[in-house]
């Protein structure tokens, strides 16, 4: 996994609630597009007009924010479908961090599997940050320090679960980490076969 330490750059404000993963990447792009090229279709319904041309009103189509590494979003960003392609599409268009009031739980998990950092900030700070970032002035997100540095003013602290923070900073492979616990898994399963044999179909 790509490690995440700090990211600095323009932060595009897209403040609206409930941007779901169907909007982030429509399903027909998932069945017909290679993972590496999904970035072209990220936010398709917002980013393009019905005739296929770019929608000039969409923030990531505007000059300072084209290719921006940071997105500032509203409440419940990434709600809905579990499609991991949503994260691949966002990363495919250059994003490494989304700052929002809150995220869909499955989307959050998918971010951490791919080196994308979701940052939760309170609404008031988010609004202040979006206002400042609207000029295209650079924002820094520092995972080691766990704060967002706005263009002006004090750093805004955030919290990331220690387990996830370490994995992201080091770019750790979660599967490799779990494999080290194989003896514990085997011991648990042996106990469970005795306690709940009906779960284990070979013994049912």
């Amino acid at each position, binding site marked *: 996994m790509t490690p995440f330490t700090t990211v600095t750059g323009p932060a595009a404000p897209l403040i*609206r609630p409930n941007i779901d993963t169907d909007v982030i990447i429509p399903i027909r792009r998932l069945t017909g597009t290679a993972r590496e090229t999904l970035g072209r279709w990220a936010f398709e319904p917002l980013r393009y007009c019905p005739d296929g041309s770019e929608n000039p009103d969409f923030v990531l189509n505007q000059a300072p924010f084209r290719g921006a590494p940071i997105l500032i979003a509203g409440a419940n960003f990434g709600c809905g479908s579990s499609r991991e392609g949503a994260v691949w599409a966002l990363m495919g268009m250059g994003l490494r961090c989304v700052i929002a009031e*809150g995220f869909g739980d499955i989307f959050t998990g998918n971010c951490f599997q791919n080196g994308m950092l979701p940052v939760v900030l309170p609404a008031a700070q988010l609004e202040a940050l979006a206002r400042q970032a609207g000029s295209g002035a650079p924002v820094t997100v520092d995972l080691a320090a766990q704060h967002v540095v706005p263009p002006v003013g004090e750093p805004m602290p955030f919290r990331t679960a220690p387990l996830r923070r370490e994995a992201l900073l080091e770019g750790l492979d979660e599967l490799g980490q779990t494999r080290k616990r194989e003896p514990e898994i085997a011991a648990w399963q042996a106990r469970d076969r005795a306690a709940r044999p009906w779960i284990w179909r070979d013994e049912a």
Partner: protein
Amino acid sequence: MPSTLLDKLWNPHAVADLGDGWSLLHVDRILMHDLSGWRAMEEMRERGLAVRAPALTFATPDHAVSTVPGRTGDEPGPGLRLRAGLRDGAARNGIPFFDLGQVGQGIVHVMGPEMGIVLPGATLVCGDSHTCTNGGLGALAFGIGSSELVHALATQVLRQRKPRAMRVRFEGVPGPGVTPKDLILHLIGRIGADAATGHAIEFAGAAIRAMRIEGRMTVCNMAIELGAKMGFVAPDETTFAYLAGRPFAPSGAMWDRALAHWRTLSSDADAAFDCEEVVDAAAVAPTVSWGTSPEHAIPVDAAIPRPEAAPDAERRAAWAAALDYMGLEPGRPIAGTKVDWVFIGSCTNSRIGDLRAAAEVARGRRVAPEVRAWVVPGSEAVKREAEAEGLHEVFLRAGFEWREPGCSLCVAANGERVPAGARCASTSNRNFVGRQGEGARTHLMGPAMAAAAAVTGAITDVRELAA
């Protein structure tokens, strides 16, 4: 210390405590479908990984298969490659695979319970956010992305943070024409699409206890539309009666042992929850969505909301955008809004009870001339049961299309879609922008309400149709 049902489902599955509320959580069942399962099978092969417990893993194609009547499975479209990939991956790894035309094929969350694969007290994952449906049987079931699916397939565990415990009690007796779908849509409309983020929801109360398993699954199905990865109902006699004799459920002495365990799976009387909501089921009306989030839900006899009434500026803008996308005029009654399409199906409402309720409305009536109406049974087993009862004839006589099992118009992953600008009364779970097709306009509702929309050509209060 008194325990919640969440504690009783979660804690015994913690293989290791990873600190800070995180567990290495054992996964008892993995379900795979053609969209996420295909990709996981490919990745397992590329990385040289073996499936750790093929006997606990099950696969069926549902998302991208054609549902055209009389399908052969060779219909051109994206589904061909995905189904073949899932089938080959399952064969390579010794995973039971239920193909088109076999009992066991169907929407994965319809098939799992009806085959007895999903059991109370079991943990279950699938690369699909509506895996929470299976909580209707008292399972701890949740959706994951492709990376976590590969992790679960290879290790039979996942790194998970225990969610906070939320309880929703539906008390009282729902009025005539009010279904489980109305109860859950009402709740989402009241508390919002992110009200349960970070929580697991236990659904309880008199209305849940009185509900059939199918209805409990409808309610749990939409836990994710409240932001909760998992929703569940404590198993009871209704659950046990539903499971007895199902193909993969335990039997004989093993059934008795399982039953003794399942009877322990309920929240202690004095257990504390992090938050609780109480809904008076008697006060809920048939409910429909008007916008582009499931939280945009109102009683069918209400008016389309005005953006000025939104609670904050952000929502005011979101409501205005939703009204624009939906082509609706605020202030007008939602009832009477003309529809072009009707879809009865999806993991929310495609079980036999849903089809019976829709058929009851369709019987002796005709689909309105300008409306195209589809009934897509949730599984091969549901289809056969419905046909044995003659429900398909009721639908066909009324002018509905009677189709083959799959996800179909809920997610439009198989090339079937509602045309741009067309308005669809749908028994599915998401009214997101473009969900049923580019530019398609979705109104969520229950099966009888959808059938009523089909025969009248407009959103209709099913209680008035019956009168």
